[in-house]
């Protein structure tokens, strides 16, 4: 007998051990997310994928699906909460989309569009975060970091290099580079690393490539994020 739960009234099949977001993606239903990536263990930190399960809030990337669950996701209430979380991410960093080379390929920007975010709403923090340009092939722009930890997980779990880590606590949490100098140029990081491929925003960038893809051919020019992010992508 197949296992199912309902998501916004739709019956979603799942297999034993699948999380709600995995089952939803497999069924072609989009749940907004930033720190979740199908190839990595869930981190559960960004909270964008929060849904209500039987009336209680939970992160759909960490909650395993169970038979008969009643899950709400695409509701006015939950999307308003997601929008507020996205606005907080925008004001905590320095996200200047107009001059960011990740614009059009950025998951944070695309999610903000998806959620109908019209302004940052909150006061900007304008943190001072110098870029790290020490590596010959890659640039780190910490201004855009949303602390999803995908680069940390990729470098540790796939590349076996441990180039990145999150340091500090609470509002002081920040991305660091595992080198005595703190500079990417003093690590064994290369553009072939998985960690170089997973950043959902514009922190880890290949140097001298910015704006090579014309407007109209960028990922989210072609289709909104809800149509492009499914299982395995």
């Amino acid at each position, binding site marked *: 007998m197949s296992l199912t739960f309902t998501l916004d009234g739709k019956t979603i099949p799942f297999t034993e051990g699948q999380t709600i977001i995995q089952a939803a993606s497999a069924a072609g239903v989009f749940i907004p997310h930033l720190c979740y990536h199908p190839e990595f263990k869930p981190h559960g930190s960004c909270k964008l994928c929060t849904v209500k399960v039987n009336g209680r809030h939970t992160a759909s990337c960490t909650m395993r699906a169970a038979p008969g669950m009643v899950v709400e996701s695409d509701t006015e209430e939950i999307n308003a909460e997601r929008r507020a979380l996205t606005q907080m991410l925008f004001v905590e960093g320095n996200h200047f989309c107009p*001059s960011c080379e990740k614009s059009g390929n950025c998951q944070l920007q695309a999610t903000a569009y998806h959620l109908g975010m019209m302004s940052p709403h909150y006061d900007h923090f304008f943190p001072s975060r110098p*870029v790290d340009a020490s590596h010959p092939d890659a640039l780190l722009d910490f201004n855009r970091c949303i602390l999803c930890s995908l680069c940390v997980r990729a470098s540790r779990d796939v590349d076996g290099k441990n180039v990145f880590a999150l340091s500090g606590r609470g509002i002081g949490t920040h991305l660091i580079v595992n080198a005595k100098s703190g500079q990417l140029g003093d690590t064994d990081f290369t553009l072939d690393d998985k960690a170089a491929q997973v950043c959902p925003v514009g922190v880890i960038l290949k140097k001298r490539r910015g*704006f090579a*893809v*014309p*407007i*109209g051919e960028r990922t989210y020019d072609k289709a909104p994020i809800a149509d492009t992010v499914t299982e395995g992508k």
Partner: protein
Amino acid sequence: MTYQLETAQHPETLRRVAIDPVSRVEGHGKVTILLDEQNKVHQVRLHIVEFRGFEKFIQGRPYWEVPVMVQRLCGICPVSHHLAASKALDIIVGARKLTPAAEKLRRLMHYGQMLQSHALHFFHLCSPDLLFGFDSDVTQRNIVGVVMAHPETAKRGVLLRKFGQEVIRVTAGKRVHGTGAVPGGVNKALTVAERDELLKDIYHIVQWSRDAVHLIQKVHTQDPGLYNSFGIFRSNFMSLVGHNGDLDFYHGTLRARDDNGKLIFDHLDYQNYNQVIEEEVRSWSYMKFPYIRSIGKEHGWYKVGPLARVQNCDQISTPFAEHERKEFIDYAGGSPLHAPLAYHWTRMIEMLHAAEVIKELLHDDDLLSNDLMVQGERQMEGVGVIEAPRGTLFHHYQVDENDIVTMANLIVSTTNNNQAMNEAVRHVARRYLNGREITEGLLNHIEVAIRAFDPCLSCATHALGKMPLAVELVDAEGQLVHSLSRA
């Protein structure tokens, strides 16, 4: 050093009239006028009241981001900043010569911008003054008034601008703030469909541009007493001049002439611009005052933009525009015409030239080529110069070995015209305001003089016609004597 009417001897005893903000121009500025009890003018200044800071916050950013970032200086001619920065960074990446396709695509983008910006300025911002009169009914003196009284002229203005914006869209990806140019080339060629869509309209765009030249020529020549003398002052000219002395908006060498048309310098590689140009800072404006070093601060300032370019070049490469240039030069009578209102005439000659160049380019198959990028030996410093709609635009960058910008210097087109605009405003104040009761119509004369230069006062945004203009006349004790509002 002081200029006549720049600084009054005893400002504390004078009344102050402010035009704040100046309307129907790009960006935000104000004019202050100090008057004595008999309304005699003692001081006139055009102030730029915004501080932008781009030169500072570009520092510390990767160089390839710069062409996209700096274009945010402006919403009217961002392509100028986009391309001037790209040209400077071409030098940084060692791309001294672009592929034919890349250069032509950039040129197409730029001439599209020239067309739309000149059309916007002439039809939307200035035609109300020129068609109705400087002190005509203020409720009619705007683009809506032009639409009501001259619907065909207004419609052409809108469609000319729209066409220029479409040229920008197909080359840069967006009508405003696109990403087409990258250091070393461009990121996109034209598709056949995009080219054919533009080709469909270009012939009547050329014809409408010719008609626009004839319209302003008629307006100008019908009232030479006004148009040849309003706000007039003599000065040097400067612009880029292309191959063989052609009018060229995209590339060339620097040429400057004195007020009689005699060459000051010519064939100057703009990589060495700072050997001939110096910038002065004055305490009362955020806009700097550039001047030609060899002549000095007092007499070394100059005019840029259409009036300078059309009189500085030896010829125009396209036939209709060249014919109109000759008509203009004949009218000027063999020596340079310095009248600010002649900017409008030359601006329309340039719009016609832009339309003709676009037509030529659209017949060139290089636009469809995907050979778009070159690279060479990496350099640490580069200068990019372009003729923006409002005049010569300089971008100068230094980039370190990690690809981070360490120094930026921009001399924006309007900055080059700073002293010239102040002189025009002072001339008009002396001629029209001295000893009279201030009225809205008289104050508009000041604005007409400023508008002739098509200034982009902070290279920023623009509000259409109805910017809230409030003028207050305050006596020496600070009491409000008289006020006028255009809210």
